[in-house]
């Protein structure tokens, strides 16, 4: 067992973990931050996406001990300070970018990662960036639309309805 300390959504947290404990399990089980989901265990679906030191990471494929000392952001830390939805979150709701909601935290975290690096992505760039995030409900169109809308672009002409 190892003692680890990290910053999660701006708060310092610490815990004792086995060497094999995954970051996602530390977040979900130890910190009770259950918004980060496990969909595939194998880095394919992206439901577990969080940011570690500003980089999008699939937390089912990172050991908790590896995040010792890191600055971690999860879906629980994405809303505005007053509790209202962030621009990305609000765009997902406005453009019907979610149905069952299970992939949604990972989608929002992936979108935030993209828009940080590329403030005005093209549709193709959004789709390329989401290759590591799977959704089984929406067919992706409205997710793409939401992300482009969140970047301030006019989405009225996008084919997706």
């Amino acid at each position: 067992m190892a003692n680890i300390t990290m910053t999660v959504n701006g708060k310092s947290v610490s815990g004792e973990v086995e060497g094999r404990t995954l970051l996602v399990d530390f977040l979900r089980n130890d910190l009770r931050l259950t918004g980060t989901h496990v969909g595939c265990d194998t880095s394919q679906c992206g439901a577990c996406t969080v940011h570690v030191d500003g980089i999008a990471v699939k937390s089912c494929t990172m050991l908790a001990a590896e995040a010792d000392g890191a600055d971690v952001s999860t879906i629980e830390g994405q809303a505005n300070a007053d509790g209202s939805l962030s621009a990305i979150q609000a765009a997902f709701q406005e453009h019907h970018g979610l149905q069952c909601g299970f992939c949604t935290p990972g989608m929002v975290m992936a979108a935030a990662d993209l828009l940080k690096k590329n403030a005005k992505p093209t549709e193709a760039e959004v789709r390329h960036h989401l290759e590591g995030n799977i959704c089984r409900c929406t067919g992706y169109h409205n997710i793409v639309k939401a992300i482009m809308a969140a970047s301030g672009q006019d989405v009225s002409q996008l084919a997706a309805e």
Partner: protein
Amino acid sequence: MPKDNGIGASSLRREDFRFLTGSGNYTDDINVHGQAYVAFARSNVANGKIISLDTSAAEGLDGVLAVFTGADFADVGGNPAGWLINSRDGEPMKEPKRPVLAHGKVRHVGDAYAAVVAETEEIARDAVELISANIEELPAVVDLKSALDNKHLVHDEIETNQCFDWGWIEDNREKTDQAIANAPHVTTLELVNNRLVPNAMEPRCSLADYNAGNDEYTLYTTSQNPHLTRLLISAFVMGIPENKLRVIAPDVGGGFGSKIYHYGEEALVLAASKKIGRPVKWTATRTESFLSDAHGRDHVTKIELACEKDGTFIAFRTETYANVGAYLSNFSTATPTFLHGTLMSGNYSVPNVYVNVKAVFTNTAPVDAYRGAGRPEATYSLERVIDKCARELGIDPLELRKKNFVKPDQFPYTTAVGLEYDTGNYDALVEKLRDLADLQGFDQRRKESEANGMLRGLGVNTYIEACGIAPSNLVGVLGSRVGLYDAATVRVNATGNISVMVGAHSHGQGHETAFPQVVAEMLGIDEGLIDIVHGDTSKIPFGMGSYGSRSLAVCGSAVVRATEKIINKAKKIASHMLEASEADIELKDGVFSVSGTDKAVSFGDVALKAYIPHNYPLEDIEPGLEESAFYDPANFTYPAGAYACEVEVEHNPLGVKGCGEAGAIGSPPSVVNAVVDALQSAGHNVTHIDMPVSPSRVWAAMNS
């Protein structure tokens, strides 16, 4: 001005806030103090005889609390099929027992034969690896047609791999055969509708908590229909009285059919919780989802279309081998039969239709309803053979369809396979499609593609779907062992806001937003005053859940009926408050008024009066304002489309049809039709490609 309240308002989904902020409450997010964890030992052979299981090492591992094997459940009931199908000769289908854990034999890769309960998930998994299983591998039955040779058996006790040999409608058989034998033109197509894995994003998860103090069980589980799950566990498998079992399905992360069914893992955690006296949880890995969730489709089909030289349809004849896998899942026998065979007339007026389905046991994961369930299989084979026929006759594929559509003046139209279509205008659908898809411009687009060295194809098709899966009288005649109504309770609280308890259960459909709109529309009040309660058998009326595009058509109709009762009672109370005749009371915009006067009382005041019944005619009216309704419609609804267009018709109180499954039904034949069209445009003699249409398959077809 768009509506901002009630039916038709483009209200933002209220469930989205919690999903977008990580505040959703899915089964795996729930932990109960003291819970232990289960891991399963699953077969890695498709067919095998269990010679011996040595669990001593697993039991001895530190942190292991209990180990279960099939022997522990030998006296427990099997997980049943919910639909009885009789073969053509009248023999009932074969129903071998589906045990909680495999006992004696394992019958598919992933078949669970033992389970370990331990302090942590990691210890449980470690312990599974310590189970020494001596399993003698036997030849596996996987091919549908050769399975019927019965050389090797999935279930020895039934002495055959055939579950049933079903004919629909058997009286049509002879005349359909004759019509095809005498027809001027017959198009034949053999195809495979490939097996697929539903793969909801949320893996299945079950958490059981047994309370010895009152002998009650609580089961949190990933279910589309908590009451149906409770019924199956109580009445068939575990024998737990229904009033001692509470089933809670919280937020559910997609289902697509795979979470309709009761699975052995649910029974196992219930039994384990009682045995160790602690809550017990199991969460599937994605690998387990692939191996143990009910799969979809898996038909091998030969379809024949007989017609006149001018393309007038004379007969459709279908022969399908349907894979049911190693065990019968709950709806597995209905899917390839009544959800498939009854739709084999499509959108067409055709006098002779006959469908033969042989359901076959194989050493593969069970197969059941998935996204559209049976209806995509019907649409795919029919719309593919029509396309092939059009090419053979040199007729435009859309014109051939139009020529044979049921016409608007023929409704209600009873098909040769026994359904009565309510309304429709399929010609209008096609014209709309021409417009939306700009079919006029296709030739030009094809030329442009060809100039760029690309092939371009156009695929069209129409579809019809029987949905709003419900009418109990009808499904009962057809073999269903359950009713398929739904239920709602509308509870007006004293301060005028409303809780609506519904039997439908959302796994992404947005019920929490849509159902309040129905009530708000009827009462003329703000939809924000209304909340939905769902997914907990201790809180909701006995409804049958969500699948088959039924939530709004069936459960929404129950909401309408219950709200009508609320209005009737509220009018009585209002008439007393206003000292007027009940017949003179009108409800508009949330206000009850006396017709032709300015005397009025608000809905909120009526609600308060119902719960503080001072100066209240208790001899005539009960206090309170809460009503329930069960709704069971007279027919399915029949949405139809070209690709996935929807049409509107009146049927249930809301006049709604289902659209949830349309995308899975209309799209596949269009895609394959288009690929074939593209290849034929370049002179490739390709008449069919099986799904999935992968690049390698297209390449192989082009080079064959």
